[in-house]
């Protein structure tokens, strides 16, 4: 199940350098590259001549993508503008062009109806390029369905078990009061852990010596944008009332882009609003979270292998799934609406 009429993250801006980048998105082969002015372009990654991936080619004359096989050249609109040794160019010699926007160090792509592509609907990830935040992120290719990652991020009780050595401890799975708020546009999961031990990463980043008041707010927007507000302050200093005294306040920023039904592009970053110019601190926090995320990747891929072996098996839901269940309901509704609109248009 893919939702087409949404923006997706196609790449980090730094991934688009001299060479074209081939990346499958929603089962469609896409080639991304920059023209001479540095503007990002996305085209279908399939030469209409003999179906060679255009990402094997190179950028010539500033903004034309030249096929590696027979040298056909395509402009930013996907139109073939040159066939070596031939003056006439068939009308069918063209590839699909996708709307692209660069924002927050990410290259965003619109896979659906181009007429509906409104950059104003790109979710807010300003933490990635704001001087008020120290941020670092990366890309992970995951051999698992994108919704498994959404489920994971909406249920942080798994931190206690999968990430015991970094961002988890028993406090996140027991004695929990979780609030799941379903808004017309998304889901917000709110969680407080009062007077609990700080997990290892928090101790390193915040220097906590005693118990903390810890929060996890998970903001989900469809199809797969999850912005986590997490942090902690020494217990009893008033965080639940909105006071911030000697603690750490961070954002964990995630954008998952389906590659296929069973593989995903996972773009994520960690941002902090304290000591923002301290790159060593940024690196340390990033590495800790990266360790945790690679642990998650192992889980996702193991899940997918089991699912692939028997797609008929049902799952049992538990209370901790409340946020994920609401997200899946929203996604299912949006998919039905998109399919109905498409059929009506046809």
């Amino acid at each position, binding site marked *: 199940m893919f939702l087409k009429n949404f923006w997706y993250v196609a790449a980090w801006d730094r991934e688009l350098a001299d060479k074209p980048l081939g990346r499958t998105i929603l089962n469609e082969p896409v080639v991304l590259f920059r023209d001479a002015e540095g503007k990002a372009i996305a085209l279908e990654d399939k030469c209409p001549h003999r179906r060679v991936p255009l990402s094997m080619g190179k950028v010539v004359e500033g903004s034309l993508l030249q096929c590696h096989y027979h040298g056909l050249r395509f402009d930013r609109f996907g139109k073939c503008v040159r066939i070596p040794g031939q003056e006439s160019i068939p009308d069918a010699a063209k590839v699909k062009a996708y709307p692209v926007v660069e924002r927050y160090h990410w290259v965003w792509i619109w896979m659906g109806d181009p007429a509906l592509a409104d950059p104003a609907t790109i979710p*807010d990830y300003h933490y990635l390029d704001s001087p008020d935040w120290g941020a670092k992120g990366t890309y992970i290719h995951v051999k698992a369905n994108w919704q498994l990652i959404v489920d994971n991020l909406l249920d942080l009780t798994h931190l206690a078990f999968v990430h015991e050595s970094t961002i988890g401890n028993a406090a996140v799975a*027991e*004695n*929990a*009061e*979780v*609030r*799941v*708020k*379903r*808004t*017309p546009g998304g889901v*917000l999961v*709110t969680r*407080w852990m*009062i007077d609990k031990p700080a997990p290892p990463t928090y101790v390193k*980043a*915040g*220097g906590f010596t005693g118990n903390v*008041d810890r*929060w996890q*707010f998970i*903001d989900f927007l469809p199809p797969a944008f999850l*912005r986590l*507000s997490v*942090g902690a302050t020494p217990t009893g200093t008033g*965080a*639940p*009332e*909105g*006071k*911030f*005294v*000697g*603690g*750490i*306040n961070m954002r964990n920023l995630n954008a998952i882009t389906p590659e296929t039904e069973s593989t995903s592009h996972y773009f994520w970053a960690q941002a902090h609003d*304290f*000591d923002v110019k301290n790159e060593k601190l940024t690196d340390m926090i990033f590495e800790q979270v990266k360790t945790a995320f690679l642990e998650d990747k192992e889980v996702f891929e193991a899940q997918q292998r089991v699912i692939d072996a028997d797609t008929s098996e049902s799952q049992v839901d538990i*209370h*901790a799934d*409340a946020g994920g269940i*609401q997200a899946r*309901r929203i996604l299912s509704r949006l998919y039905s609406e998109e399919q109905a609109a498409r059929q009506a248009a046809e």
Partner: protein
Amino acid sequence: MAETLVRTLHYGDFGVAIFERFKSGVEESRLHFRVELVWQDDKQEDVPSIYLTSDGRVLLQGRSVSDDEREHFKVPPGSDLISIDRRVIKAIKEML
């Protein structure tokens, strides 16, 4: 290291008002896991909550029906009755 200045936490900078004062004084006498489900209607108003408790019950936020109301509406005697917001039904349908 973390700064020690006192400042105000802005939980709502996702564009959604998410600061919810922690309900202090809740005794954690035993292991539990409670989920509060909140539905926001089309007018972006929160509908009273549905609680899923660790022992498998569903608690609906409402108020008890008074003896006068029982009398007024000719509700049969016996059993506890609660009065709930109509929109909770919608929330149940959408969320459970």
